[in-house]
């Protein structure tokens, strides 16, 4: 990557921007059951949702937000770079193509059950156009007290200086809840997604905050399946990542060759096992919590 992707610039902007902290957001699939509920919740939280896209529903509106037939139509009316994708999985690839073709730079992909081939193709398409995908199968991204694009509840999150990156949605909430309760707020919490293919993997998530001074520490919530945690450790070593990191890995007691709820959570042989991930973290002296509730005290010790 030649130029670093600045997610904070895209989501919040610079203090001099006229729409600082109020960057316009588009929701693809806004009129669906799921899309409409969360559009309302995101808006309540402070997200500036300017338009929705649902084919054949152009001209309608949802709680005052105009709906367009296509991203192309929406982008004629609004200069929008962020899209939350709430369409059903079979329509995911088409939605991504449409978005990046019309200037969207950050796509938050909520749908679960996206076929792997579609995910790979969507990522190639985004990359070619200099866009970034978070997900699929992610709860989204939240900048506590500022805005969120996703389906996470807002209660567990508080403003602060740590970053939470999680392969599991509910564990992102659970871990942030424990951190907030201990007085450790979050600058950003981002769901990697439970699928085998992630638009923003753990390494790329770390890369998003490596140069951000306000992020003082990182909590990484991993789980069985694949080798994202092992690769992350390689990245941390290579780049001498200099913020304190606490890890947690779910699935220590999971059996082999059984898919544990997430499409990506499956162990083959030793590939994807919790032991492999935990020993990788331990090798570079990153503490691994045994339970989510332990994370705040481990982090507090590191920050001393």
């Amino acid at each position: 990557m030649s130029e670093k992707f600045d997610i904070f610039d895209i989501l919040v902007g610079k203090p001099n921007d006229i729409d600082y902290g109020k960057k316009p957001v588009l929701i693809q699939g806004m009129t669906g059951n799921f899309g409409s509920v969360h559009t309302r919740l995101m808006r309540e939280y402070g997200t500036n949702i300017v338009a929705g896209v649902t084919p054949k529903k152009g001209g309608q509106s949802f709680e005052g937000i105009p709906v367009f037939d296509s991203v192309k139509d929406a982008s004629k009316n609004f200069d929008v770079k962020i899209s939350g994708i709430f369409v059903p999985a079979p329509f995911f690839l088409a939605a991504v193509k449409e978005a990046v073709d019309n200037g969207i730079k950050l796509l938050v992909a909520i749908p679960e059950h996206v076929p792997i081939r579609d995910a790979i193709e969507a990522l190639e398409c985004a990359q070619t156009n200099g866009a970034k995908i978070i997900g699929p199968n992610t709860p989204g991204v939240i900048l506590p007290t500022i805005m969120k694009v996703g389906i996470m509840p807002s209660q567990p999150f508080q403003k602060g200086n740590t970053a939470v990156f999680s392969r599991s949605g509910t564990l992102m909430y659970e871990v942030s809840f424990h951190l907030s309760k201990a007085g450790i707020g979050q600058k950003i919490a981002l769901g990697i997604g439970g699928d085998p293919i992630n638009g923003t993997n753990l390494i790329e998530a770390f890369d998003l905050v490596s140069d951000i001074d306000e992020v003082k520490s990182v909590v990484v919530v991993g789980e069985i399946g694949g080798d994202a945690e092992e690769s992350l450790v390689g990245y941390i070593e290579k780049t001498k990542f200099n913020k304190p990191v606490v890890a947690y890995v779910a699935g220590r007691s999971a059996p082999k060759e059984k898919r544990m709820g997430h499409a990506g959570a499956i162990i083959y042989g030793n590939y994807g096992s919790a032991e492999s991930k935990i020993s990788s973290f331990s090798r570079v002296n990153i503490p691994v919590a045994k339970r989510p509730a332990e994370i705040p005290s481990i982090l507090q010790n590191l920050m001393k």
Partner: protein
Amino acid sequence: MFSEYNIDIPKSYLAKNQSELNQIVDKLEFPVVLKSQLTVGGRGKAGAILKCTKKEELAPKFTELLNKVVKGERPKIILIEEAVDIDKELYLSLFLNRGKRTYSLISSSQGGMDIESVENKVIQDVSINGLSQSVAENIAKNLGLNGVTATTFAELVTKLAKLVKEKEAELAEINPVAILKNGTCLALDSKIIIDDNSLFRHPELRKYIQISELQEQAEKSGFSFVELDGNIAIIGNGAGLVMSTLDIVNDAGGKSGAFLDFGGRATTETIYKAIEVISKLSKVKAILVNLFGGIVRTDLVAQAILDAYKDGMISVPIYARISGAKSEKSRQMLSNSNAKLYDTVEEAISSLVHYIGLSK
């Protein structure tokens, strides 16, 4: 599936029971190899592949395999395959490389073993759109093959790549690939994992789905369900949270008997249905519910638990940690029942494991 792609396999038959075996016994040319049909790997090492040199050995070995449980799985069907005249055995697989977001191919001149212990393996990236003849020929050459063997092996590689692309497989492994004395290639044993999420595009593959009745019922309700060896059933919202709960139960000395992630939103109906699935497992001695939601109304969950007891669906105790609204009301609702609410999952698990210990 291999015949659709002209990938050769040895002459073989399937039999579910003794009478089906009797129907094919006269067609067989001995020696034959019996292979237990399982979804778990490592069956060779587990003794679930047996060779029969003569007809008299067939029936006892068949019965032995039918009754042999490997990693908790009992076969429903046995494959009987005629033995072939093998010159050498190779390894070949194509799989989704998650980190690289592409496919990788592994080949090795050492076949028939667990790939993790295979030496001399060559790993290379291949495009999702298939691979060219020249790449395939190169792979054959790197394995030290030549002449007609190299050509047939290269053909096998392209056929397998085509299958992976068209059927949207996450993994397609042939282990071993047998090179016969006459130079032809046979797939002796293989494993294909299809991307479940692409099945809506592949109605032709539905017939291969092997799941238990209970799992089917759970999936119809939109749940992820995995049966495990222990006696504590764990219900929660979110795969990571349920896995994490499993770990804490395990650390506390308990053994999980079921993993159930009902995903999405906790309503009275979803929780009731989740308990209904669990109620079919007679080995379950206690249920642990771990919900996190911020916006979960715990009284709706409490109502589902009360309904499940009232309808006589379950009698085992439920230990619940529900982080959400109206927990005081829920506590009162459950006060005369066999269920108890806790503030933290650690407290719930500690009480549960204590109870299981007493009930032994």
